[in-house]
C-alpha cells in the first residue's frame, strides 16, 4: 500500500493505459477483423443488384431492402420469426424460473449434479437435438406410438413440420440459457429477505411477487434477451422440425445466399434481421427497466 502510494502518478497512468490496451487489443482486433469488416462488406453487397446468370452486379440501390419491407412474404416471415421467438422466450421463462429457483435454493448434495444436468444439453449441438425431436415427433415416433398405445388417438398426430414442433424444439434448445442465467441471479438474493416477508405474514405468492421476482428482474431481463436473440436467429431447429412450409428468417437468409447465390437480397435480409433483433431487444430491455423504476 505504501509502495503504491509512493509511486509517481504519471507513469502509473501510462502503464495502466498500456495494460488496458494489451488486454482489450487482441479481442478488438478479432472483433473488427472477424465481425465488423465482414458486416461492412455484406452491407455493401446488400446495395448491389442480383441479375440471374450474372451473380451480383455492382450498384447502389435500396431495391433489396424495399423487397424485404414491401413484399408480404418476407414481412410474414419476419413477423412469424419475432412471434415464435417471443413465445419461446415466454415459455423458457415460465418453465425455467421454478427450475432455476430450486437450483439456487437447494441445499442438496446433488446440487452440482443438477446443474450438470441443466448444462448437459449444451454439450450437444441444436441440430443433433432437433434430430432427437424428429425421432420423437415422427408419424411413427415415440410420442405418437405412446398416444396410440394409450388409446388417446386413433390415427397418428401430425407434429413434424408444424409450428408446435419448432416451438418445442427452440424452447428445448434455449431453456438451459434461461435456467443458468436466472439461477446465478436468484442465488445472489439473500433468502433472509424472503424469510422476513414470510415472517411478516405475507403469503408465499405475495413474497414471490413483491420480493423474489423484483429482485431477480435483472436475471429475467438478461435470460429473456439471450433466449429471444437465440430464437430470432435459430436455423437448424426451424429447418429440421419446421419443414419446407414453415419459414423463419435465418433459413431464408441461408437459402438466398447459399442456394440462390443472391447475396444482395440475402445481405439485406440479414441486416433487417439483425436490426429487428437489436431494436426489439433494446426496446424490451428499456421497457422493463422503466417499469422496474416506476415500481420502485
Amino acid at each position, binding site marked *: 500500500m505504501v509502495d503504491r502510494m509512493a509511486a509517481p502518478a504519471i507513469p502509473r497512468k501510462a502503464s495502466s493505459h498500456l495494460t488496458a490496451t494489451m488486454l482489450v487489443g487482441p479481442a478488438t482486433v478479432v472483433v473488427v477483423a472477424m465481425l465488423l469488416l465482414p458486416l461492412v462488406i455484406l452491407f455493401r453487397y446488400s446495395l448491389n443488384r*442480383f441479375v*440471374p*446468370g*450474372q*451473380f451480383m452486379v455492382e450498384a447502389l440501390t435500396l431495391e433489396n431492402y424495399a423487397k424485404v419491407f414491401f413484399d408480404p*412474404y418476407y414481412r*410474414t416471415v419476419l413477423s412469424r420469426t419475432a412471434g415464435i421467438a417471443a413465445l419461446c422466450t415466454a415459455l423458457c421463462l415460465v418453465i425455467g424460473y421454478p427450475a432455476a429457483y430450486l437450483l439456487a435454493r437447494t441445499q442438496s448434495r446433488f446440487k452440482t449434479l443438477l446443474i450438470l444436468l441443466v448444462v448437459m444439453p449444451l454439450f450437444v449441438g441444436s441440430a443433433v437435438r432437433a434430430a432427437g425431436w424428429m425421432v420423437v415427433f*415422427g*408419424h*411413427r415416433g415415440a410420442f405418437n406410438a405412446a398416444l396410440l398405445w394409450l388409446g388417446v388417438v386413433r390415427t397418428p398426430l401430425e407434429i413434424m413440420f408444424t409450428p408446435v414442433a419448432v416451438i418445442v424444439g427452440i424452447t428445448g434448445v434455449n431453456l438451459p440459457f434461461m435456467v443458468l442465467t436466472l439461477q446465478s441471479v436468484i442465488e445472489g438474493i439473500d433468502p433472509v429477505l424472503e424469510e422476513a416477508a414470510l415472517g411478516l405474514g405475507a403469503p408465499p405468492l405475495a413474497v414471490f411477487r413483491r420480493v423474489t421476482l423484483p429482485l431477480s428482474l435483472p436475471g429475467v431481463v438478461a435470460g429473456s434477451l439471450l433466449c429471444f436473440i437465440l430464437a430470432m436467429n435459430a436455423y437448424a431447429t426451424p*429447418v429440421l422440425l419446421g*419443414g*419446407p*412450409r414453415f*419459414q423463419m428468417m435465418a433459413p431464408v437468409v441461408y*437459402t438466398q445466399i*447459399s*442456394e*440462390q*447465390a*443472391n*447475396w444482395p437480397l440475402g445481405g439485406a435480409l440479414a441486416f433487417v434481421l439483425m436490426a429487428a433483433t437489436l431494436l426489439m431487444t433494446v426496446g424490451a430491455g428499456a421497457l422493463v427497466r422503466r417499469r422496474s423504476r416506476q415500481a420502485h
Partner: protein
Amino acid sequence: MNIRHPLPTRSWSLSRRRFIEGAGAAGIAAAVGSHGVNAAGSKVVVGTWGGDYQNLIQKNIVPLLQPASIEVVYATDQQPPRMTKMLAEARLPRGTMDISALARNGSYEMYKAGTLLEPDISKIPNAKHLLPQVSVPYAVPHIYSGRVILYNPKFVTEKPTSYADLWDPKYTGRVGVIDVQYLPTIESAAMISGGGLSDYEPGKAKLLELKKMGCKIVPTNEAMAQALKTEEIWMCIMWKARGVMWRNAGIPIEIAAPKEGFVLFISDFCIPKNAPNKEGAYAFLNAMLDPKPQEGFIEDMGYNPSVSDVELTTAMAKRVRFSAEEQANLLVPDYGYLAKNDAQLKEWWDKGFKA
C-alpha cells in the same frame, strides 16, 4: 442457381475386396495416358459436393492417378458457393480449382459466364467413347440418370404411365414432392399442362391443383425415402438412380416410365479457364472416363456411365440402364431457360406454392 446434386448420401465402407479391386484398377493406370506423364508428380484440385460422391472419386478414380504420382486434393462445397467462387476468381490469372464437378445446369451457367475452358478432347483419349446424348463442348460428362415415377405397388395398383397419374384423385394426400427438387417438379407439371422444357409457366397452376389435393412437401430426398418407407407417401417423381438405390435398400417402391419422356440429370466435370494445373485436370478426366471407375459409380450409386465402352452386365447395371426404347426417349433440359428463370421459379415455389 440452386442445383441440388441428387446423388445418394448413404454411407459406404471400404471392404478388403473393394480395396483389392481398387488396387487392381491401379494396374491399368496406363489409361491415364501420356497426359498422366505430363502431369506426373503434380497436384489436382477437384471441386466437389463432398460426401459419398467425393468418397467414390477417391475410391474409383484416384487409384488410376497414383502411378503417375498425381495427388488429388478436394475443394468441397455445395454447387452454388463453388460457382460463385469460380465467378469471383475469373479475373485472376490463376484460380484455385483445376476441376469442378457441376450438374449440367451449373456447367452451362459457368460456360455462359465465360469461366470454362472448352476441353481439348485430343488430350482425353477415353473421350472418344462419350455418348453423344450427354456430350457438350464445355464440359466432360461423368454420369447421368433420367427422371421417373416411383410408386408403392401395394397402394398404387395400376402402374403409372404419365406424370398426370400423380394428379389422380385416388391418391389424394398420398403424393409427395421434394422441396429441393422444385425445378424438376415444376418441369414435370409443365410437361402435362401445355408447357414443356422451355416453358414451365403452365406447370405452376397445375401444381397448385396438386397442392389443393393435399400433396405432401418433404424437405429433402432423404425425407422422401423415409416417407416412402413408412408408406406415408405412395407416389413421387425421382431420378431413376435413386429409385434403384432405394429399392435395393428395401423401400417398397417400383419404378415407372413416364410417357412424356426421361428428362436427364447429367453430372459434369469442368476445367476453369484459369485452372493452375490443366495437364493434371486432363489426366483426371481421362481416368474418370475409364471403364473401371465408371463401373464403380454404377455399382455404388446407380448412375449410368457417360461412355459406351462399359459393360453393363451386372444385376445392378441391368436395373440402372435405360432400354434402347427408353434411350430414344431421353430429353435434355433447356439450360438457357433454366439459367434465366431459376430465380423466379424458386420465388414462386416459396411464395406461391409452399406458403
